[in-house]
């Protein structure tokens, strides 16, 4: 994890503002000096993200952890190309992000399934869009539904599924168009504790197969430590990176073993302490 982005301090002037020019790095995702300002009619400009620097290497599982309102989801939306940056730059494999693309597959807390499509049709949507023939797409979608243990439900509509099942479909739907990067926006945040741990295990199992690059947004310390290679902790108002933890725990990870592992406990405890400190500052 020594591939810190090379920054050369060449000030470039844009609208009178000075930013750091980012030399193209070989990181999978490179977020350089990114800020986000929202203009509100009542309170003027609101700075949501302030000078965020962050890199994610290919095949790395990286979590962004922080309280609600710290802008962590906004950061993910900007990598997805759904929301524009106000300043700074985001590059994916050295190419600046200008909009959404099938190389970055989002999975949202809200599932965002197409309710008028069956489970199978939802998963087939991306491959069909990418020009895969229908039969092939159906076969491929069925394979993915087996992977997420939902093959019996292919003809169901989203409204007939539980939250956990919906999120499994959403994950399969995103995996179906083979993105290089998974952008997961608090994917298990709306689920009950039991389903949440099941899905964390399943996600790791799936991830171990081909180790895609994952950017994972969460507000759960245990979730971040259990899943990730690296955890960025963010502070709110304005949102910025507070601290980085490289999680040096063996893989494949087994929850029951990790819970007894002193290193796992240390990571969780030190992040919890940091968050406590942060709370006091804002109290």
């Amino acid at each position, binding site marked *: 994890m020594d591939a810190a982005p090379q920054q050369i301090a060449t000030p470039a002037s844009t609208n009178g503002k000075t930013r750091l020019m980012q030399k193209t790095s070989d990181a999978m995702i490179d977020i350089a000096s990114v800020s986000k300002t929202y203009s509100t009619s009542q309170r003027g400009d609101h700075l949501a993200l302030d000078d965020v620097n962050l890199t994610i290497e290919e095949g790395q599982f990286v979590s962004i952890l922080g309280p609600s309102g710290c802008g962590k989801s906004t950061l993910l939306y900007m990598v997805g*190309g759904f929301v524009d940056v106000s300043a700074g730059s985001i590059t994916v494999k050295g190419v600046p992000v200008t909009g959404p693309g*099938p190389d970055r597959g989002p999975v949202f807390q809200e599932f965002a399934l197409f*309710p*008028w499509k069956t489970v199978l049709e939802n998963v087939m949507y991306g491959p069909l869009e*990418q020009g895969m023939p229908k039969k092939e797409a159906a076969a491929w979608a069925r394979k993915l539904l087996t992977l997420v243990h939902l093959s019996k439900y292919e003809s169901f*509509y989203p409204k007939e599924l539980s939250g956990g099942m919906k999120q499994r479909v959403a994950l399969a739907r995103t995996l179906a*168009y083979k993105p290089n990067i998974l952008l997961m926006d608090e994917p298990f945040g709306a689920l009950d504790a039991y389903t949440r741990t099941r899905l964390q295990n399943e996600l790791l199992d799936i991830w171990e197969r081909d180790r895609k690059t994952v950017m994972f947004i969460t507000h759960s310390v245990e979730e971040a430590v259990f899943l990730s290679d690296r955890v960025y902790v963010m502070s709110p108002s304005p949102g910025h990176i507070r601290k980085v933890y490289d999680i040096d725990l063996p893989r494949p990870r087994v929850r029951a073993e990790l819970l007894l592992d002193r290193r796992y406990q240390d990571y969780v405890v030190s992040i919890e302490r940091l968050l406590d400190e942060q709370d006091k500052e804002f109290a």
Partner: protein
Amino acid sequence: MSRALWLPGLPPLLACIGLLVVWDVFTRAFAIEGLPPPLEALRQLPGILTDPEALLNIAASLKRMAIGFVLAVAFAMPIGLWMGRSRLIAAAFNPLFMVIYPVPKAALMPIIMLWLGVGEASKILVIFLGVSLPVVYHSFQGARTVEEKMLWSAAAMGVGPAGRMLRIVLPATLPEIMVGCRTGLVLALITMVTSEMIARQTGIGNIFFTALDMAQYNDVYAMIIIIGVLGFVCDFAFEAVRRWLVSWADSPHTIAVGSA
């Protein structure tokens, strides 16, 4: 007893019989000249419904209503969806539509007749206006509340802006559009009858108001029953289509008018 009440169609049937009984008692008690007993009115129905002239009139009315309705949906739905997805378009059109919405469309009939004459065009235009507004309104409300993340998911798969409008916003809004269409259908019936009242040539409204002018009250009430049944049948058929189209939707927008 309580189980028998749950037979489909039985409660509304009982309500209809109840209404006829109240009507009958009322006519016996007060003997108003313009209010014939229900049986007298019902007795006119076979005569009207076997009279080719009357049937041609009803068919002409339904044709107008269908043309006005279809044109209105074809025009209003895209505008509503566009307003729902573009703040600029919404800001431009919304005040305009909100001003036009409460204006009784049939009241515009005399003015429209000055432009288009007393023929089909005027009546269809009035029906069109009546149907358009609820369809615009509901399409607009539906389209603006489409889950943003759903559109983002489609964008990530490579669906472009036009494709997202047609293949994500439209189906996602369909349940709400159908609510607007259902209101539109009722308004189509109302504007159809009133437009025919004002520009009398053919149609259900023509029979109705000609009978009224000639003080044939039995026929007048028979026509009221026919119009009522027509509305009921239209709504029932529409509800069947709606259910079939949006059976996937989370919360069924059922306002049980015709359907039990």
